[in-house]
């Protein structure tokens, strides 16, 4: 996916620029405020739907539209494809666990990074928790992958 040997000199600057736009959008839309996300989940303000689906419409048009013009990306030479994952029980179990965490805290990964950017140092509790959680599942799954013989890269 990303270049192992020679990386295009504009690769990292472009990723940074994309992150910059992405993070600005999360700030502008107030998604960096856990309270606003909780207000959505408690049915007090449905604005979040415009953020998530507004963004999905832009990516959808981009993902499907670019293939009309070219087949590979200029900086990586990679073929333009869709983001497709295998649907298995992990999607539902993991999605459910994520849902409990999202509903409890009002944060999700991207919005948490953005929250740090708007000055919310309290969010470090949340980001620290995310690393702990990511480590725990990596520990369990590394252990079970070793006992199951050949380690398969699930995603």
């Amino acid at each position, binding site marked *: 996916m990303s270049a192992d040997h020679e990386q295009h000199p504009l690769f990292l600057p472009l990723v940074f620029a994309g992150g910059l736009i992405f*993070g600005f959008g999360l700030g502008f839309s107030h998604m960096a405020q856990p309270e606003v996300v909780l207000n959505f989940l408690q049915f007090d303000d449905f604005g979040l739907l415009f953020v998530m689906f507004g963004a999905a419409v832009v990516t959808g048009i981009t993902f499907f539209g670019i293939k009309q013009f070219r087949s590979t990306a200029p900086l990586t030479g990679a073929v333009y494809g869709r983001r497709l994952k295998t649907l298995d029980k992990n999607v539902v179990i993991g999605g459910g666990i994520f849902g409990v965490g999202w509903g409890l805290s009002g944060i999700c990964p991207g919005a948490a990074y953005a929250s740090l950017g708007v000055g919310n140092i309290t969010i470090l509790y949340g980001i620290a928790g995310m690393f702990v*959680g990511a480590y725990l599942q990596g520990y369990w799954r590394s252990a079970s992958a070793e006992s199951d013989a050949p380690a398969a890269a699930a995603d």
Partner: protein
Amino acid sequence: MSLSLLALAFGDLFPNGIEHYAVGGLFVGLGVAVIYLGTAIPAGASTFLESTLSYASNLSRFQQYRPSRDWRVVFTLGIVAGAFVYAATFQSGLVSSSLHQPATTGEFLEVGGLTLWLTEVQPWRLFLGGVLIGVGTRLGKGCTSGHGVCGVGSASGASFVGVATFLLIAIGVAQLVAALGVSP
């Protein structure tokens, strides 16, 4: 009359308007689109958690992300910086627009002309929620950006299922927590 009823219902659903949500959402999508157009990578935010752990841990689960870990750090730094640009401009009142809505939650902190925003959601909720988010997004193959923005934008069946699952569960949990009197 039906029109004004409709407007009333709309105001109930969107007490803070919709402009800043829609504009912010377009920027979020644009950020993903810029990276995708240049690299063909549909970037999500939660893989960063595992790929960054590969710098510090030799667990086999994290090693698969070594090839992408550098750019994922850069992507995350970009997100933090982009939100900081928002804080230094609109949030601090340096730039204004009719599309922008000032924050009505949390608390503001003035530091040398810069307006910072701080949450009032309790730290234990952030931390415990964060742990569950770390486990769930990685097990479930994506978060609100990976499944919600990139996956839905790809018309991916797995992402539709993922989004429906975490959205419904989160609504239930948030309502339950509020009903138990936990606030904020």
